[in-house]
């Protein structure tokens, strides 16, 4: 589909808004979108939140290192997530846990849930497994970081492994 403004470039930005009681949709190319002040799509799609900040949160995240380049469940890559600001499915949080963690910490100032827990025994079982997986994945990453002489990352990973092992 062509951009509705310049009618030449391919449209890749979808804008939905309500102005004066009328619902309108616009399909624009990124250049026209930017010229019209829509360069930050997050602000428009998520008026309820502070999504506009999100992309900058993501860009500071660690590069993909867990070896799981695609989510086994929905097929999202970490790049898909940072580009759209949207996570693909519940499993993505497991698959890209270490990549997402810095962004999550920056947004919330914390990365450990406290509050309601659903009344399901099976959740616990799944949890133990996913913690095991996480530990395994971290150890692999640590090995790799050491091989690549990326000591800063290695130190961060080592601390996290320690922390997780202490929790067990």
């Amino acid at each position, binding site marked *: 589909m062509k951009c509705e403004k310049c009618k030449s470039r391919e449209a890749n930005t979808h804008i939905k808004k309500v102005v*004066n009681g009328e619902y309108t949709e616009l399909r624009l190319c990124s250049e026209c979108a930017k010229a019209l002040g829509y360069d930050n799509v997050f602000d428009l799609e998520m008026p309820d939140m502070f*999504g506009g900040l999100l992309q900058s949160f993501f860009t500071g995240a660690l590069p993909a290192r867990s070896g799981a380049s695609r989510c086994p469940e929905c097929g999202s890559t970490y790049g898909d997530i940072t580009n759209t600001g949207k996570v693909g499915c519940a499993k993505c949080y497991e698959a890209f846990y270490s990549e997402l963690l810095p962004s999550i910490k920056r947004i919330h100032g914390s990365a450990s849930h406290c509050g309601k827990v659903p009344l399901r025994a099976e959740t616990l079982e799944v949890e133990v497994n996913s913690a095991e997986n996480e530990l395994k994945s971290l150890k692999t990453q640590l090995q790799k970081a050491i091989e690549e002489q990326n000591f800063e990352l290695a130190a961060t990973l080592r601390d996290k492994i320690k922390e997780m092992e202490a929790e067990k």
Partner: protein
Amino acid sequence: MSDAVIISSRVRLARNLRDYPFPNRMSTSQGEEIAEKVREVMCGKDFCGYKFMAVKMEDLSEFDRVAMVERHLISPEFAAPDSKKLLITTENEEISIMVGEEDHLRIQVIIDGFELEKAYEIADRLDTELDKKLHFAFDKRLGYLTQCPTNLGTAMRASVMLHLPALKESRTVARIAANLSKLGLVIRGAYGEDTESVGAMYQISNQVSLGISEKSAVENLRSITEQLVNSELKTRESMMQSFEYQDKIGRSYGILITARLINHKEAVRLLSNLRMGICEGLIEGVDLATVDSLMLKIQPASLMRLKGTRLSPEERDRVRAEIIRSELRPR
């Protein structure tokens, strides 16, 4: 006392079904399947002591959909017609569930007045019952899993809608906004964008949802709201000493009951002045509920919905003035 300042309380929970991808990765048929499941669980019988009805967004007219945005029942995003989007509500619209918004389910409870705990209690009960049938995605570390990481954890957004004309006039709102963000809360204009609100209506909500329990988030919001209410009332008291301000309120009422054409922005601004005049005992014979319902009714799509037809902006200004005159006429 708090009626003068607090309009309504709202709690919203985001939930996703464990066995389906999030809305941005799901197919149309998966989306319809989820909508059908939720409908089956909630509709056609008593659910948690409430009677729910469901409507597909694609079956509604544009006025209906946009009017829902105007009365804060749904998000602008949800107003787009789409076969995956299903809205489930109680008859009075106090409780609503958007199915197929940014998350599979958005459970929302809006109650007039300062009723945060009650709103949370209802949302919590619905969530627990729904989870038994739908199995929501949850992780012990990250809490409820949501499409956008900003909602992780409790996936709860609690908010109160406040009328703060005196704090707006004294330019205190901007200063408060800076301090609130340090407490993990955010304030924004309920009509229009950012903190410069038309009609001095503001919404305060929690910004952080991971690492803080529902109970503490609600308590934080409650205590900040109480402080804001007190400082609003104190500022009003001193403001009302000035004849200039009393005159402004009297004139606003005068225009509202006599105007033949009035645009939305002007109407909201004058209704806001009138609302304060009523609360401060300057204007009698009009009750707050009438003003609050007018604020909602006179929005563009809501007007067209009321008249059942498309109206040009000029026609809307005429119809708006007519409705305001008839509802505010001294009895």
